[in-house]
């Protein structure tokens, strides 16, 4: 499939039959591709007794996310590596995801398409709830840096809210909010950092701002939020109380499948874009569960060509609520995430900061 036609597909516009047809063809093509180009992937398929190629997407064996920590899984030669992406994990080893120039480009293009759907094409004054130093990591790109940088495309006059020691720079954000108060400000950050270093600090300092039509996009995991008993509704309430009129979108995504993020709609559900899919598997025997039942989240993406990450079994628990029939009108599966399997190592982007 040509990259241009892949990128130009309607973000939430294929119904389940059309999407199934597209996903099946593309995911099987990728399985074949990685089988031929990645020795470890080939051995993996052999180990689990796949003597012939799967015939449908449900039978493609998902690769456990943890294997990207233990092995250098790639389907390209050393000299084709354009970028090495790393998970932010501080506990245990980090995942390594190898991208060639085409994959890196495709990921950025898809990310832009998804976000254009939610934000429009115009770029907005942007406040990043992080330190500028977080992006400057020369030793491979971390998931956090990739998130900050990917989202930066949607902003202009970027302002980093935190100092190098991750403390809120009150003078800087006050000046930023005053300068752009008439415009639709875009705010981005990782959930726990937004909560602890931004919202809670504003509360401590008793500072309020009155933004008009601002948008906050945040992601990176709820594990630490749950430890503090903060759920999505409470998080949103505190944000609006401090900042005024802000539309809040959580997103779910991972370094193993950068680009295809799952954005939260106005009804609180995460939505699979056309390029990717979610499946829920039983935590004990990994059989596929029907809509409405909680299990391990498997994410399938049509993008990865440089590493065998088109079908990945995460360590997150979730529920798919339906397909094509969310009240918001977007097509595709919609789901919610319900924490991690209990014995999984902490790994979320915003969880690396304490």
């Amino acid at each position, binding site marked *: 499939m040509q990259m241009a036609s892949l990128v130009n597909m309607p973000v939430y516009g294929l119904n389940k039959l059309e999407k199934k047809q597209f996903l099946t063809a593309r995911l099987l093509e990728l399985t074949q591709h990685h089988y031929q180009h990645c020795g470890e992937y080939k051995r993996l398929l052999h180990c689990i007794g796949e003597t012939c190629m799967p015939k449908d997407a449900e039978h493609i064996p998902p690769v456990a996310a943890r294997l990207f920590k233990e092995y250098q899984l790639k389907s390209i030669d050393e000299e084709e590596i354009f970028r090495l992406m790393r998970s932010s994990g501080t506990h245990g080893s980090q995942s390594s995801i190898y991208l060639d120039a085409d994959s890196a480009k495709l990921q950025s293009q898809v990310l832009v398409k998804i976000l254009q759907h939610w934000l429009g094409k115009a*770029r907005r004054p942007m406040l990043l709830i992080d330190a500028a130093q977080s992006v400057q990591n020369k030793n491979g790109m971390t998931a956090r840096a990739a998130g900050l940088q990917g989202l930066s495309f949607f902003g202009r006059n970027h302002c980093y809210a935190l100092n190098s020691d991750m403390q809120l720079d009150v003078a800087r954000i006050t000046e930023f909010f005053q300068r752009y108060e008439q415009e639709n400000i875009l705010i981005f950050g990782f959930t726990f950092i937004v909560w602890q270093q931004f919202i809670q600090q504003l509360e401590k300092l008793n500072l309020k701002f009155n933004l008009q039509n601002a948008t906050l996009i945040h992601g990176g995991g709820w594990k630490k939020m749950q430890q503090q008993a903060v759920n999505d509704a409470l998080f949103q309430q505190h944000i609006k109380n401090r900042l005024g009129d802000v539309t809040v979108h959580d997103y779910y995504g991972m370094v193993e499948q950068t680009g295809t993020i799952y954005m939260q709609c106005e009804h609180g559900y995460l939505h699979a874009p056309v390029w990717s899919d979610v499946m829920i598997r039983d935590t004990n025997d990994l059989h596929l569960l029907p809509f409405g039942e909680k299990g391990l989240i498997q994410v399938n993406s049509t993008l990865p060509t440089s590493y065998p990450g088109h079908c990945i079994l995460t360590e997150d628990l979730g529920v798919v609520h339906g397909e094509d029939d969310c009240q918001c009108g977007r097509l595709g599966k919609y789901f919610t995430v319900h924490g991690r399997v209990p014995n999984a190592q902490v790994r979320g982007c915003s969880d690396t900061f304490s």
Partner: protein
Amino acid sequence: MFEDKLKQAFVNALSIEENEVTAELAYSQHPKWDSTAHMVLIAELESSFDIMLDTDDIIDMSSYQKAGEIIQKYIA
């Protein structure tokens, strides 16, 4: 004039020599034109030409030549 201004913006944003700015100069091909430098370049082009680029332009701006075409659209 336009060409000089465009060239200078690339020199400033990417910290490269003027003779490196050729029609073949392309995103991710030159070591200094990576995704971080790309945002610096966008900001530089916006201020030099006093324009506001949208997200499609940022993705499309994959070479020096393409940058010229995109900016022409705004100042024509």
